[in-house]
């Protein structure tokens, strides 16, 4: 039979539909000619198609729906008949003459609907009769659909409070009774399906059962809609009766589905008030039922209920919801020692979410939940399973989302302990979640203790944990991680210098364990945070009676020196050099000459020993010159040593044009506007002349190598520098020198052997224009420029 299967089913369904349609046709003819007898005859024949055992529930449903539609027309006809004088009681009796029981019952239900509407008998009586009569069908599929039909036609005719069918009872007891009975019988039929047929078809049966489950569940839905059920009635009769059926049927599929149904269908306030009873049912269920999922969904609903408004929260407290749920979960986990770890974490995750919504201020509750989780995890070692670790991330993210604040989450003593059980990858994921939460909420982490705790938590990002293989990490991912750590470092702040220094020391301690790949990302932000602190302290008066222990710029510089040092060993010499120069300038601003000198020394050593790439050298030398130019803290000797070195480096750059430019930049080392004792006109001129010689040499080399003298740009640049110092009042620079330079350039540009360079031409032109402008300005400046002929 299995082999024939689907194709045959299609055939039978087609046959059934054909039969149904044919009889329906005749039935319509009878209806049109008001022929009651024939109508009944053909409708019964039509309904006989539903007597089949050959169809799966899915296909049976198709047949059923067509019959259903036809029966609607029949019902309308019956209503017309009663108006025409036919008694509904007679009709009710008449249809029972149908030959086979199934058609008989469908017809009876149909007439019953009309009967109730006629109000010639109380609704409750008719319904009671019908629900009893349906016992006649014990075949699961047929019985379920029949009772489903009964439920559908009776739906709007229940003797509910406020309904027109209420009767004189003034309660909804009868309505409830009817629905409960129908539900109970339907469940029994449904469960019976499990045991029908051979064992090898079990899977097929279970699938079919699954298709039918909504028919059974619908009854609970109807129950939930009955107006007359208040909390007391729910508590006293409805829930106990339903649960009794659920527990007693001892069927795993039914129990799982129905428990979930109850939870989804009835209002959350009812669940709160019946929490004991509800939770008490769980241990009575079959051991194979997936209780954790149902429990999780219950907690989810209650969480959402709690989140819907603060006014419902007292209810939760009043029924001690947390304690009850906590206990229930504990019992479930205890009763199922083999529950996979994913299940355990899911349960605790739901409970934690619940706790966060209902008791947001009770950190101890949240901590309790995490603690229970830790206990369950202990002894298992690090988790490998993907889903389980994802659940843990969800578990740990929940407090972050709720509190919007890692600081509060850190107060949960079990929080870091849960993190311990994550494997390295997941630890990194969690760490990133934490950092993102901090950045999104602009959380202020302002004490060294908190920083310590935080960096412990995110240690997966800070250093290589045991078992981590760095080679496997994608480079872009790694950069992103480290950049987020860098951003985090920038955010750590406290206005109190003492505390800030402690924070810096704590961060430093952690990042130095990060290894050569991480330091280039993490050291710079730390250095700049430290320099900001230095500047803050600079503004304050140096207290000669201050404590030994108090933070001073000197202390910070000491730390900085040791920190930047770590970069030189990586190697990251360019970065280290830049940071040394930043420190030097800061030391300069604090008037700490030896400290500044030391930083320059370190920078120069790096330049000499580690920086060999030409482009890097050019950048480095400009930074050195630029920084040195701004130093005011150096005495003559120190300054001389450093400038001498700087000019030396400049002259030794690889390419002549670069040499030239660096050397004339050095000219500024000897003339600083706001430092009167640094205005050495002679040495300025020496530099410029040296630059000129280099430019000449460059021309000659170019001639020798390429046959043309190359661009005159360098000469124009030097000319501009001459003008700069001329304007500043350097006595060594006179009009004659400038004039001869102008002529030099002009000659060179007109020479045949020079390479035409429009950029240089434009540069020269704008320089000459500048000279004109200055002349036009009149006054002392104009006079100065007057003698220059362009």
């Amino acid at each position, binding site marked *: 039979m299995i082999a024939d299967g689907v194709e045959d089913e299609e055939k039978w369904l087609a046959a059934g539909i054909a039969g149904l349609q044919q009889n329906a046709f005749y039935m319509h003819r009878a209806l049109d000619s008001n022929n009651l007898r024939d109508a009944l005859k053909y409708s019964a024949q039509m309904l006989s198609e539903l007597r089949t055992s050959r169809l799966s529930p899915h296909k049976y449903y198709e047949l059923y729906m067509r019959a259903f539609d036809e029966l609607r027309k029949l019902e309308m006809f019956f209503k017309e008949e009663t108006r025409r004088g036919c008694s509904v009681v007679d009709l009710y009796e008449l249809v029972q003459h149908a030959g086979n029981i199934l058609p008989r019952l469908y017809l009876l239900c149909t007439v019953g609907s009309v009967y109730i509407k006629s109000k010639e008998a109380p609704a409750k009586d008719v319904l009671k009769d019908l629900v009893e009569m349906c016992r006649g069908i014990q075949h699961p599929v047929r019985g379920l659909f029949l009772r489903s039909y009964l439920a559908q036609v009776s739906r709007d005719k229940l003797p509910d409070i406020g309904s027109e069918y209420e009767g004189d009872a003034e309660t909804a007891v009868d309505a409830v009774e009817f629905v409960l009975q129908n539900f109970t019988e339907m469940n029994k039929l449904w469960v019976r399906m499990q045991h029908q047929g051979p064992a090898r078809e079990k899977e097929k049966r279970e699938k079919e059962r699954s298709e039918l489950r909504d028919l059974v569940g619908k009854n609970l839905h109807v129950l939930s809609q009955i107006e007359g059920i208040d909390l007391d009635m729910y508590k006293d009769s409805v829930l106990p009766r339903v649960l009794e059926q659920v527990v007693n049927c001892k069927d795993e599929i039914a129990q799982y589905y129905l428990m979930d149904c109850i939870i989804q269908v009835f209002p959350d306030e009812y669940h709160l008030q019946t929490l004991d009873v509800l939770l008490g049912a769980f241990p009575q269920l079959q051991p194979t039922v997936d209780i954790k999922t149902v429990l999780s969904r219950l907690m989810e609903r209650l969480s959402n209920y709690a989140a819907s408004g603060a006014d419902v929260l007292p209810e939760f407290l009043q029924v001690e919801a947390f304690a009850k749920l906590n206990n229930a979960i504990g019992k479930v986990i205890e009763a199922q020692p083999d529950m996979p770890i994913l299940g355990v974490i899911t349960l605790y995750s739901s409970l934690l979410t619940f706790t966060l919504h209902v008791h947001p201020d009770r950190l101890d509750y949240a901590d309790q939940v995490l603690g229970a989780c830790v206990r369950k995890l202990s002894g298992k070692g690090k988790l490998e399973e993907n889903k389980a670790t994802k659940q843990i991330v969800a578990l740990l993210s929940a407090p972050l989302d709720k509190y919007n604040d890692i600081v509060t989450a850190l107060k949960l003593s079990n929080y870091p302990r849960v993190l311990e059980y994550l494997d390295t990858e997941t630890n990194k994921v969690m760490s990133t979640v934490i950092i993102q939460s901090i950045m999104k909420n602009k959380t202020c982490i302002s004490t060294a203790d908190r920083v310590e705790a935080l960096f412990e938590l995110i240690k997966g990002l800070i250093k290589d944990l045991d078992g981590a293989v760095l080679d496997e990490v994608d480079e872009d991912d790694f950069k992103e991680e480290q950049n987020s750590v860098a951003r985090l470092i920038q955010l750590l702040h406290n206005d109190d210098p003492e505390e800030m220094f402690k924070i810096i020391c704590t961060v430093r301690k952690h990042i130095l364990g990060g290894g050569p790949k991480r330091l280039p990302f993490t050291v710079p932000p730390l250095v700049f945070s430290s320099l900001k602190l230095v500047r803050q302290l600079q503004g304050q008066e140096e207290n000669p009676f201050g404590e030994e222990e108090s933070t001073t710029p000197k202390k910070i510089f000491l730390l900085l020196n040791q920190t930047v040092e770590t970069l030189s060993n990586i190697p990251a010499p360019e970065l280290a050099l830049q940071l040394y120069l930043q420190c030097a300038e800061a030391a300069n601003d604090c008037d700490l000459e030896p400290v500044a000198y030391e930083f320059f020394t370190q920078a120069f050593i790096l330049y000499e020993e580690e920086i060999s790439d030409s482009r890097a050298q050019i*950048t480095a030398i400009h930074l050195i010159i630029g920084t040195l130019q*701004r130093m005011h803290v150096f005495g003559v000797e120190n300054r001389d040593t450093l400038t001498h070195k700087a000019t030396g480096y400049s002259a030794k750059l690889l390419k002549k044009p670069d040499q030239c430019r660096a050397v004339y930049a050095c000219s500024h080392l000897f003339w600083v*506007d706001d430092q009167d004792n640094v205005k050495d006109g002679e040495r300025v001129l020496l530099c410029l002349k040296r630059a000129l010689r280099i430019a000449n040499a460059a021309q000659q080399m170019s001639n020798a190598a390429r046959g043309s003298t190359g661009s005159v740009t360098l000469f124009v640049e030097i000319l501009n520098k001459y003008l700069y110092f001329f304007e500043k009042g350097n006595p060594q620079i006179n009009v004659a020198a400038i004039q001869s330079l102008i002529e030099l350039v002009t000659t060179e540009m007109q020479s045949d052997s020079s390479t035409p360079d429009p*950029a240089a031409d434009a540069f020269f032109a704008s320089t000459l224009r500048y000279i004109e402008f200055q002349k036009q300005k009149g006054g002392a400046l104009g006079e100065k420029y007057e003698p220059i002929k362009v």
Partner: protein
Amino acid sequence: MLVPGKIQHIICTGNLCIKEVQDYLKTLCPDLHITRGEYDEETRYPETKTLTIGQFKLGLCHGHQVIPWGDLDSLAMLQRQLDVDILVTGHTHQFTAYKHEGGVVINPGSATGAYSSITYDVNPSFVLMDIDGLRVVVYVYELIDGEVKVDKIDFKKTTATTHSAH
């Protein structure tokens, strides 16, 4: 205003540091011009750049190459060398805008308010330029004590650009 589609060109003096920031700027406007700052991880940004927008020639450079740092006369020299009407440089993290007979020198300051050895109390700032014919209006946005302050400066060119081959 910093949403995609509103800005036609972005001119950046450098020290974006990481590619992420470049990617972000690209989402605001695909026509992105960047010169190299000393902390940029991308070593292929040029040291200087020139571009023409409407009637104006603009020059771009980070500025650590121009010594003394922040010195107007030295910057003016670079402006003459690049032969541009508007020179945009950075490095000092301090907004400045100078008009002189050769043109305009603008320093948009630091967009993030980052530490600078040169400037104390850096306020985050950036500049929007509205170029219309021979006129450019420079709007500077500064974040001072939590509030955004806007100022504007007007420049007018006297002659149209002569398009020389660059």
